Structure formats: structure tokens, C-alpha cells
């Protein structure tokens, strides 16, 4: 999928620029875009490193566990098909907590473990279970409380108030999560 998108962007871009007769500009773009990428990652590295460092403290002190327990009642409601003592619930909580704090890369290992635990309870190994789909809908609709990367970029461009989008993002996230979970609920019931 990424292959096709990448080829699409480069192919369309080059062909169209040549058709428009702006070959000089095209050469500049090709030669300069790599340094644009380097600049972007150099500005992002401090933020990523800072947050993974802080979250390591939260993990070791058990704060991440406390956040997980906070989500537990909600998860029991959302995942009725999982057993009460299912290990998957712990990993789902940790994944959501890490995602909520804007730590996408820290959330991924928890999410993969949650999928493995749910797969153990799956009877048809090649087919997604209800719980898996609910988890992925919840995950991809983006339960983000602090969008760290966005704030970092806004700071980079000297926004007067980089954090002002936190509140709007939370409300929009609630809308998309509720919409996704509702549709999932009805499509699950329709099948039965």
C-alpha cells in the first residue's frame, strides 16, 4: 500500500512538473527535499526522547499501571466478549494510556501484545474477533489527550499558543471514537 502511494506521489509529481515545463524547479526540489527531511527529524528528536524518558519513569513507578486501572471499568463495558481476568485487558489499557499521552511508539508494543492475547482466545485463527475489531477502532480513532508531535511542530513554527489545539483535538477525538464504536456495535449485532 505504502509502495503504491510513494510511487504515485513521485511519478505524478515528476511527470506533471515536466509537462508544465518547470524542469529547473524540479531539480531543485529533488536535491533539496532530503535536507528538508533531516531538518524535520532533527526538530522532532528532542520531543520524542524527552517523552519516552518521562514515560520510563511512569512505567517503573507503577503510574502507568494506575492509569491502566482507571480505564478498566470502561473496557469491561466495551469488550464484553473478553474474560474478566483476560491478560488482553491490561495490555489494551496500557496501549490506550500510552496513546492518550501522545506516545504512539510506546503504545505499539502494548497493542501488539493485546492482539496476541486476543488471538489466544480466538477459535477461527484467520478471522478477526469482535474484541479485536473494537480494539482497533478505538485505537485508530485516536484516543489522544496530548498530541505531542503536533504541539512540537506548532512550537517549531512559533505558534503563539502551541497547546491551544489540545482541547479541540480531545472533543474531535471523542466524536470520532463514539461514532466508530457505535457503528462497530451495530455491525456486530447485525451479524448475529
Amino acid at each position, binding site marked *: 500500500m505504502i509502495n503504491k*502511494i510513494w510511487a504515485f506521489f513521485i511519478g505524478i509529481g515528476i511527470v*506533471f512538473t515536466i509537462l508544465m515545463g518547470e524542469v529547473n524547479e524540479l531539480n531543485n526540489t529533488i536535491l533539496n527535499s532530503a535536507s528538508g527531511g533531516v531538518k524535520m*527529524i532533527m526538530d522532532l528528536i528532542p520531543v520524542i526522547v524527552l517523552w519516552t*524518558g518521562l514515560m520510563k*519513569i*511512569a512505567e517503573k513507578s507503577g503510574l502507568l499501571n494506575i492509569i491502566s486501572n482507571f480505564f478498566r471499568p470502561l473496557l469491561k463495558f466495551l469488550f464484553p466478549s473478553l474474560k474478566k481476568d483476560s491478560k488482553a485487558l491490561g495490555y489494551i489499557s496500557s496501549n490506550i494510556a500510552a496513546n492518550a499521552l501522545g506516545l504512539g511508539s510506546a503504545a505499539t508494543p502494548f497493542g501488539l501484545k493485546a492482539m496476541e492475547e486476543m488471538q489466544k482466545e480466538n477459535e477461527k485463527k484467520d478471522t478477526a474477533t469482535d474484541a479485536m475489531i473494537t480494539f482497533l477502532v478505538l485505537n485508530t480513532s*485516536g484516543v489522544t489527550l496530548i498530541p505531542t508531535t503536533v504541539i512540537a511542530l506548532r512550537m517549531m513554527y512559533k505558534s503563539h499558543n502551541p497547546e491551544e489545539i489540545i482541547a479541540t483535538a480531545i472533543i474531535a477525538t471523542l466524536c470520532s471514537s463514539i461514532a466508530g464504536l457505535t457503528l462497530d456495535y451495530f455491525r456486530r449485532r447485525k451479524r448475529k
Partner: protein
Amino acid sequence: MSTFSKLMIPCFVLIVIIYGLKKNVMIYDAFLEGAKEGLITAFNIFPSIIAMVFAINIFLNSHILDYVFKFLQPLLTSLNLPLQILPMAFVRPISGTASLAIMNDIFNNFGPDSFIGRLASTIQGCTDTTIYVLALYFGRVKITNTRHALTTGLFADLIGIIASFIIVSLVF
């Protein structure tokens, strides 16, 4: 609302540090350990960021979207939608890096405090790379029949984008 937003990060940092001290965690060592992992993560996404910035720049600098959206303009203006947000919404589910690169471009051209800058920030914060995440997670446990996962995920993203537009229009 903005005071609440502003206090969230400092309070969280403070809570992490104080709770860590209370539980006798070697907080400085823990921070260094996590920071090192973060550096490795950053290092791992380095090539994909360069690859994506490269492709996106060629695509955007060809100005093809200007032509396409100029063609669509009457429809978009009647819906009161800013033109430049569409490419970002379009690539968001596929690649976080690509949509970040477009948001970077929007900030560069319009500034982060413009309407479109705030809209882009909100959309980026409330949606995720749905297709990429599904491929990664289902791939891990070798599930081929994903049932209604993809369409439901994309539906949630669409609602998120619409909600962002309405909320940003109302708040700012």
C-alpha cells in the same frame, strides 16, 4: 480552555517526577534509559521521514493539487471548506509521516495560528494512520479476514475530520 490546555503538560511532568520519587524509582537513570529507547525509535523513523518528505515535496511542488482543486473549487467553496486541508485528510489514514509533512507545509505557508493551521493540528491530533495500524496489528497475528474493521475505522476518521472542522470553526 487554553489555561487548562497549558497546564496539562507541566502538571503531568510534575506528577511523573513526584510519584517516581515517592516509589523510590531511580528517576534519573530511568529517564536516561527511556530516552535512549526514544533515540532508537527516532533513528528508526529517520529514513521513512526523508523518503516521505522527498515524495511529498515532488508531488506538492508540481502544483498538480492546485489544478485539481481549482477544478473542484465551486463545490468546495459552497461547502466553505479550505482547499489545502484535503490532501492532508486524504493521506492521513495511510501514512502519519506523509500527513505530518503536509501539515508542516501548511504551517510554513499559512502559520500554525491560522484557521487552516489550527484545523490541520486538530485533525492530526484526533485521527490516526488507520490503514497502517490495521496492517501492522493484523499482520502480527496472521489474520486475513478482517471483517468490518477497515470500513469502521475509516468511518471514524471521517467523522473526526468533520467534527474537527465544526469545532475549530466554533471555538476560534
